[in-house]
């Protein structure tokens, strides 16, 4: 019986327990009168199913998580001469796994690995049998307990609600723990980077050229890890993007929320939101193939020297990409301003635009700023467009017509291809990631703070 089949069996048994408990509770009260139960029969059913099935499912998942490692340890233990393999242990485990999963590798593997793989297969079969037996017996024991303890007096509704709440709590904390895990892994690698390069040099250095000398006598690859040009490039491109997105997004939000007839609004709003659904890589080649050359051609015609990969092209397209973020948040915020404000202003004889400028926008401003900050975080984190349209050279410049590079692009280039994880070149990516994470975190905090402050205004 395969583990996959087992889980379906357990689920089927649990649903059987659901119907069984439900029927049984009804039978235990006079006339099968629902009103005599402390909770609805469904609640008893759910509680019965959870009591009977949850422990078995828990055993199942915990077992599957640890099975691989335990079996591998067993296999390694029977191999001759374990000490000599200490250094290459990881490699050996990899070989064995390959041999198990892939017949070709099995054919090519040496005697030792084949033996281990065979042994693993054997153990694995036994383990599956044991798993099935354990799960089914846990289920049986729990079912017996359900029979004994699930009576019409049990407050099933309250318990089911508690279990559901606990489960939901688990789901939400899982996301938090994942975030913490990401931060910790980045933090760990970044700390290794800062052992070779000082924090000061990284944060304030003006030169970025992460090529490390492989040989002592190599020329021109000293390795400079000053992140300032990268952050400058990021800010430049984000600034250009916001220059495009903030006014256009805001104005379209104003039009849609205050001026547009219902029909136009119903048509335009979803179309604007399609912009948010276009994959960034598509924006990327739009920037690289259409906007970049067009800007260069235009620049040449008026005598400007525009690089074919320029901050302007990338920033412009990125701005187009984040228009929907700005417009949809602003639209929500503007719509949230009470109608009484509009009536008050219009009733004074103010025009639509006066009402907008003098009453609605000031009232909605904090929310709009919050939305803009969220859009900026999005722009800072954007990678694909910049990789394709802004180039890779770390110029420290404020000229939007030159090629620049951003933090995210450098992270990509540092981690793409073959890497060695003991070189500062690779580790620099984690330091960059960490810094970027903090920058966007701070921006998000400010945005949330501003938005929250706004909420207090009308309540």
């Amino acid at each position, binding site marked *: 019986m395969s583990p996959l089949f087992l889980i379906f069996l357990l689920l089927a048994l649990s649903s059987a327990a659901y119907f069984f408990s439900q029927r049984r509770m009804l039978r235990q009260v006079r006339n099968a009168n629902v009103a005599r139960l402390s909770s609805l029969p469904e609640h008893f059913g759910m509680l019965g199913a959870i009591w009977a099935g949850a422990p078995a499912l828990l055993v199942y998942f915990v077992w599957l998580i640890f099975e691989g490692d335990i079996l591998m340890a067993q296999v390694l233990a029977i191999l001759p001469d374990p000490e000599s393999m200490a250094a290459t242990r990881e490699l050996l485990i990899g070989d064995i796994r390959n041999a198990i999963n892939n017949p070709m590798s099995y054919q090519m593997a040496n005697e030792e690995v084949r033996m281990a793989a065979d042994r693993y297969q054997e153990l694995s079969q036994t383990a599956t049998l044991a798993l099935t037996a354990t799960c089914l017996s846990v289920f049986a024991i729990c079912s017996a307990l359900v029979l004994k303890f699930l009576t019409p007096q049990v407050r099933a509704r309250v318990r089911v609600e508690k279990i559901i709440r606990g489960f939901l709590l688990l789901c939400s904390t899982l996301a938090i723990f994942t975030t913490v895990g990401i931060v910790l892994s980045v933090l760990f690698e970044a700390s290794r980077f800062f052992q070779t390069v000082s924090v000061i040099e990284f944060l304030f250095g003006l030169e970025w050229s992460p090529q490390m000398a492989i040989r002592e006598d190599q020329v021109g690859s000293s390795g400079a890890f000053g992140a300032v040009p990268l952050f400058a490039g990021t800010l430049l491109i984000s600034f250009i993007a916001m220059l495009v997105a903030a006014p256009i997004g805001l104005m379209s939000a104003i039009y849609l929320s205050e001026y547009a007839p219902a029909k136009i609004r119903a048509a335009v709003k979803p179309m604007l939101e399609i912009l948010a659904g276009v994959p960034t890589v598509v924006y990327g080649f739009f920037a690289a193939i259409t906007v970049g050359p067009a800007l260069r051609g235009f620049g040449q015609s008026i005598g400007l020297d525009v690089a074919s990969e320029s901050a302007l092209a990338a920033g412009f397209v990125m701005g187009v990409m984040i228009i929907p973020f700005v417009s949809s948040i602003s639209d929500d915020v503007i719509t949230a301003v009470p109608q009484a*404000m509009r009536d*008050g202003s*219009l*009733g004074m*004889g*103010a025009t639509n635009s006066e009402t907008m400028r003098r009453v609605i926008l000031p009232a909605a401003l904090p929310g709009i700023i919050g939305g803009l900050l969220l859009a900026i975080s999005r722009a800072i984190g954007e990678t694909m467009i910049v990789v394709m349209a802004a180039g890779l050279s770390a110029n420290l410049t404020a000229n939007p017509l030159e090629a620049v590079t951003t933090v995210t692009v450098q992270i990509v280039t540092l981690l793409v291809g073959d890497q060695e994880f003991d070189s500062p070149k690779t580790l620099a990516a984690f330091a960059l990631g960490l810094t970027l994470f903090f920058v966007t975190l701070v921006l998000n905090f400010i945005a949330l703070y501003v938005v929250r402050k706004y909420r207090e205004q009308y309540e």
Partner: protein
Amino acid sequence: MDITETLAIPIPEQLDSPAVPDQADLDLTTVGDFTVPDPRMKIRDVNVFYGQKQAIFDVNLDIGSNSVVAMIGPSGCGKTTLLRCLNRMNDTIDGCRVEGRVEMDDKNVYDRKMDPVLLRARVGMVFQKPNPFPKSIFDNVAYGPRIHGLVRDRTDLEEIVHTSLERAGLLDEVKDRMDQPGTGLSGGQQQRLCIARAIAVSPEVILMDEPCSALDPIATARIEELIGELRKNFSIVIVTHSMQQAARVSQRTAYFHLGYLVEVGSTKDIFTTPKHQLTEEYITGRFG
């Protein structure tokens, strides 16, 4: 028991209106004289529709100068709709259509040449729920004069703000905190601030849509007192659900029922000797 029997609205006896005899339905022709000498505004044959649904049927009513007209009637009878016709605030509602004439100085305010912005400067409005802008007390009152360019300099503006607040009876309470947000005042103060804001542009007519329904009795008494004062300079139309309030503040009363103006007359007559049976039943509290 037959339900229809208990719920049926009694058919009014025909008094002095020349209605069709044997009419099984209610007779909703206006009783009483809807005209006044020297009217400020005239409502003539006004019908209002929300989409397909008609909310106001053939209403005729004069708004007298320097007097208070109260509009009363059960919820959904069209009082507020008619009130909002007077300064074309219904324009802001999608699907709302007004037929007929609303005249001010013998000009139809629904004429295509009429600018609703100028109209609303002449016909101010105070709403049911106090709605001060999230600005300072000063800026709230200064809002109208600023957008209409009524002032040349700061001194003028301060003068207007002070006079308006004084006429709204709010100056003494707020003169030390003009720069604080208007939303921080109490409900009654906020409503008086809204009245000050409305009179700051020197309108000729002030429309009040249940101005006291969100206020406590003391704040209500202050507003009613204020309405009595304002009558000397403005024409006032007030929609109210409180018949005592209508009796206290108004000189004329109009009773509406299901979009029809059923009866209009001097407040004293309406409340002492109502002619239409529906009016009598409403003011004596038998329905509504």
